[in-house]
């Protein structure tokens, strides 16, 4: 197997990044108060810079930097835009985020909203969807850590996978969301600046015009903006990403953590900045097509192109970009999922009188538990994990309309929401297996829209009021 950098050099780079992360974890851990507001919501007073950077860092995943070039290489220019529309999902969520901040400023999780808005049955379905998504997401990121180091340096898969999980778990445990926010800013800067440097160097060597001409000579279909697969990918990815953002506690936790006046701007700004990442990373794949590079593994097109263009320095840039992307996402998923599990299951269902210290203690236990379970699940590297993640497409798309309509319309029918979520997931899965993975989010979102709209039109709910939502959330939080 071809390696791009030596194993010792890869370990030195990853070690240096890990020391930086752990130092922040311990430094901030000594300064945070021991209550859940500080540990889980960074004091609920986060400014624009950190709020924007953490949204970017959490949303730039291993998939963004590895999969966007892969899609560009195989499907074409439309797939690069298709990947980039996931940034628009952040922008679309901006007004909803502001509305969430206004109607329930004392909320703790996305589950709080669903339980108070729609009742217990919908809440249980919602938690199952969240758990399914979190496990799939965490598994792919842990695996990507192992595969990345293995592909770049030949290091054994388990070393990279364990390194990323252990480091992220320890610094998240020590410093909570404040440590994540600080490191996320640094990670976001590393990802964006390194990617920009890579792109500038690459397009300095081969101008965009030369790259275009090379693609048109070797594989012109990649420049077809009416490509059927490309259009399907664009629509499907937009709905998948929108479902991920609307329902996931990663984003809700950041809404509660931010100051109200920066909430809207941070989602818009982060969405716009994020959109540039897959377009730039994806466009580098066209260099491989234009120059006729041999790409034995299509999911490694990004490291291959950058290494060929820039030599060992390029491999170092790739390692820093992707490791930063993975670390920031793993820590965000760990803290958001453990927060959801402890607040929504342990506190609401088993121990309503749990103290603040107990909540933080159990969140820490759950972070460790989630990390251990993830390591066990990916120990024997599953062959088709990305397919497992795409399998969640029907589930996350089923949450789009319950969240979007439920935030603005007090008359949404609760039973219709329950039926819609179940039917959306079911029919989305049927579409996944009988049509294609791209069809699942589209079918799921469409079914949800139709059922909720008809149900609400026929029998509008008159018992719910937004004025009481924050009181209800506070009541279940402080029970």
């Amino acid at each position, binding site marked *: 197997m071809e390696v791009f950098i030596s194993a010792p050099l890869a370990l030195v780079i990853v070690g240096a990044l890990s020391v930086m992360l752990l130092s922040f974890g311990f430094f901030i851990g000594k300064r945070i108060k021991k209550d859940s507001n500080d540990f889980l919501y960074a004091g609920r007073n986060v400014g624009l810079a950190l709020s924007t*950077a953490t949204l970017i860092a959490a949303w730039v995943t291993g998939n963004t930097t590895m999969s966007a070039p892969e899609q560009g290489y195989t499907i074409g220019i439309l797939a690069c835009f298709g990947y980039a529309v996931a940034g628009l999902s952040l922008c679309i969520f901006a007004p909803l985020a502001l509305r969430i901040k206004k109607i329930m400023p004392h909320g703790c999780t996305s589950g709080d909203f669903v339980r108070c808005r729609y009742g217990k049955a919908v809440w249980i379905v919602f938690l199952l969807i969240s758990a399914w998504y979190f496990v799939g997401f965490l598994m792919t990121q842990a695996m990507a850590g192992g595969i990345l180091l293995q592909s770049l340096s030949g290091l054994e898969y388990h070393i990279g996978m364990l390194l990323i999980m252990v480091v992220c778990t320890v610094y998240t445990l020590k410093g909570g969301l404040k440590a994540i926010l600080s490191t996320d800013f640094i990670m976001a800067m590393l990802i964006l600046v390194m990617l920009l440097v890579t792109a*500038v160097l690459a397009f300095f060597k081969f101008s965009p015009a030369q790259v275009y001409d090379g693609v048109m000579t070797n594989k012109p279909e990649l420049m077809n903006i009416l490509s059927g697969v490309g259009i399907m990918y664009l629509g499907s990815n937009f709905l998948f990403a929108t479902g991920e953002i609307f329902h996931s506690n990663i984003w809700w936790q950041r809404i509660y953590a931010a100051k109200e006046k920066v909430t809207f701007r941070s989602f818009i700004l982060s969405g716009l*900045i994020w959109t540039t990442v897959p377009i730039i990373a994806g466009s580098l794949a066209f260099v491989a097509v234009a120059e006729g590079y041999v790409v034995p593994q299509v999911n490694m097109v990004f490291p291959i192109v950058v290494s060929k263009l820039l030599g060992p320095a390029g491999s170092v840039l790739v390692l820093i970009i992707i490791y930063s992307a993975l670390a920031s996402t793993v820590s965000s998923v760990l803290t958001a999922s453990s927060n959801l599990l402890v607040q929504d299951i342990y506190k609401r269902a088993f121990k309503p009188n749990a103290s603040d210290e107990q909540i933080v203690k159990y969140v820490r236990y759950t972070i460790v538990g989630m990390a251990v379970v993830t390591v066990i699940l990916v120990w024997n590297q599953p062959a088709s994990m990305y397919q497992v993640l795409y399998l969640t497409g029907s589930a996350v798309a089923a949450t789009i309309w319950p969240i979007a309509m439920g935030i603005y319309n007090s008359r949404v029918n609760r039973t219709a929401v329950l039926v819609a979520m179940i039917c959306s997931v079911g029919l989305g899965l049927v579409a996944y297996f009988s049509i294609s993975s791209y069809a699942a989010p589209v079918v799921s979102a469409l079914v949800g829209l139709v059922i909720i709209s008809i149900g609400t039109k026929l029998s509008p709910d008159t018992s719910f009021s937004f004025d009481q939502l924050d009181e209800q959330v506070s009541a279940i939080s402080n029970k």
Partner: protein
Amino acid sequence: MEPVFYMSQAVFSAIIYIVMAGLAGTVALLLAILAKEWKNHTLW
């Protein structure tokens, strides 16, 4: 038969340059916001 409409070279080049310039600009903007909030003690 799939419909075909190729993106032109000028559009492709323009997108690459605009996106790179946009990324550089927004990174600078984010750093400026950080510096301002750091100075005003309003980071968190």
